[in-house]
């Protein structure tokens, strides 16, 4: 799955949900007895719409679920998967927890770091890749595992990683 470029024009008017996203948010709101419960779905929809969650989008989510913006910020930062900073088009999230580590994940991280010339949390200058070490992805039997945006790539070795990198343009 590829994302929209991680840029948002400076708006003078507050951000609004694009039509498709607005429908998804409205659907999510019907799943719960109060608006607050839709905060995670709304944050996800924002992230899928803009590739990350810029401050304007955080404000939009807060307005949508009728919570103070600082509280939504507190919720968004509690979880690891919401990108409050822009990320590259391909967000490489390599698991380094024990099971993956036992089958070579550390070597793979080193390999990625060298090939891309970036470290944990960094993005290549062309905006193509962001590299991140993550904790267990529940793919322990198929390790090493890397999640790229929302997709899992499993049973990886150096050659497999190289093929994936070439494919992700």
């Amino acid at each position, binding site marked *: 799955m590829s994302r929209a470029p991680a840029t948002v024009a400076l708006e003078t008017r507050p951000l609004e949900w694009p039509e498709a996203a607005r429908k998804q948010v409205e659907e999510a709101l019907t*799943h*719960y*007895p*109060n608006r*607050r*419960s*839709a*905060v*995670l*779905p709304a*944050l*996800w929809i924002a992230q899928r719409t803009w590739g990350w969650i810029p401050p304007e989008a955080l404000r939009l989510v807060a307005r949508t*679920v009728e*919570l103070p913006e600082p509280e939504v910020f*507190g*919720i968004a930062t*509690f*979880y*690891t*998967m*919401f990108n409050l900073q822009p990320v590259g088009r391909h967000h490489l999230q390599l698991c*380094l*927890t*024990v*099971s993956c*580590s*036992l*089958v*070579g994940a*550390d*070597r793979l991280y*080193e*390999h990625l770091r*060298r*090939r*891309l*010339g970036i470290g944990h949390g960094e993005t290549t200058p*062309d905006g*193509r*890749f962001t590299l991140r070490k*993550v*904790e*267990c*992805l*529940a*793919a*322990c*039997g*198929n*390790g090493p595992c890397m*999640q790229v945006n*929302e*997709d*899992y790539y499993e049973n990886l070795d150096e050659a497999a990683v190289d093929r994936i*990198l*070439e494919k992700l*343009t």
Partner: protein
Amino acid sequence: MSRGPLLFKDIDTPGLAGLEVYRGLGGYEALAEVLAKKSPDDCIEVVKASGLRGRGGAGFPTGLKWSFVPKDTPKPKYLVCNADESEPGTFKDRELIEKNPHLLIEGMILAARAIGANVGYVYLRGEFAWIQRILDRAIAEATAAGLLGPSVAGTDFRLDLYTHLGAGAYICGEETALLSSLEGYRGQPRLKPPFPAVEGLYRCPTIVNNVETLMNVPGILANGAAWYRQWGTEKSPGTKIFSVSGPVKRPGNYELPLGVPLSTLLNEHCGGMRDGFRVKAVIPGGSSVPPLPASLLDTALDFESLNAAGTYLGSGGVIVLDDRTCIVDALWNITRFYRHESCGKCTPCREGTYWMAEVLERLERGEGRDSDIALLDEVADNILGKSFCPLGDAAAMPVMGAIRHFREEFEYHVTHRRCRVNRRREELDALRSAPAAAEVTA
């Protein structure tokens, strides 16, 4: 080939995730009859008699938990399926839902009917967006077929199911933190009691059950408690899905009757260790439980036998450590996980996981002091039973267990200022001394 007696019997049937194939294999067949002939209380009694125990980690008897839901309350009741699958080493719920979502839906219909819930949520970990899509599709199919919605299978029972995606936080697997997260708060745990069965989601009676637990329910209610008890042991009836990881020949999920020896799982089902590897230790129930040394591989995989061996069945995530893996290094990795995932709410866990990781790192780097092993044990002991929720215990238990079984390897680090063995480090060093690979070009 069938991969197991119950949940894995048909798991690899092509198209099983679709309603038609699921029905062709007998899915939803007994549903209408159970709903017509058995009262909610009858269902709870059958599940109690089956001896089914929670498969999410704690092993609490499922029927008993359901019976705690108050009957004389005007409040709505909720059923929540825990599909957070956050315990390192565990990857079974993912395969179960991905391949057989309708079995979960059928289990949730029966469980919700038994406790009187008309709304159910499936809480999936944030990384499982694609599994959410599979489950949403199955829910839509079941709704269109009249199996969910205002009149489940033609009865006057109503059930609406929704999926809810987390966003990356191990703690949200803990049931009260999960409920906080579902309600739109930060995913931090709440004090128990009140237990969720009495005061859970939106302060209403709520049952939280693991995916695998709920998937066992249709078989039990269709065929009875005695049928279910043909598998497993007297106190640990039924089967369990074991997720095996580490350097074995065939890692993966295996469904076995409870009570099968660990050595059978590893040697017969997983094909033994990869060539050139030998078992050093096995963590049998997800990274939160104490490791078993290789001398205890004949331990039976059931709740009681594992407790007698000083560990737990947990989630059934079996992590195999080989003899060239450094035990201190492995524990450092595991402890970094808990340090990262501690929610920060209570001091013993927040500070304790930090200090355990610091001391383990020092030992691993050969900078350990004479007093460090005692210090590590003491910090762990100051977390155990003293943290707000069991995440702290989950961090302390593997450390204490590793010191208990591998004390001399810890001591070796202090006296020799290096690891006795460390395959991971050797492999990394070899890579680092090799010439750099070319950078990727656009």
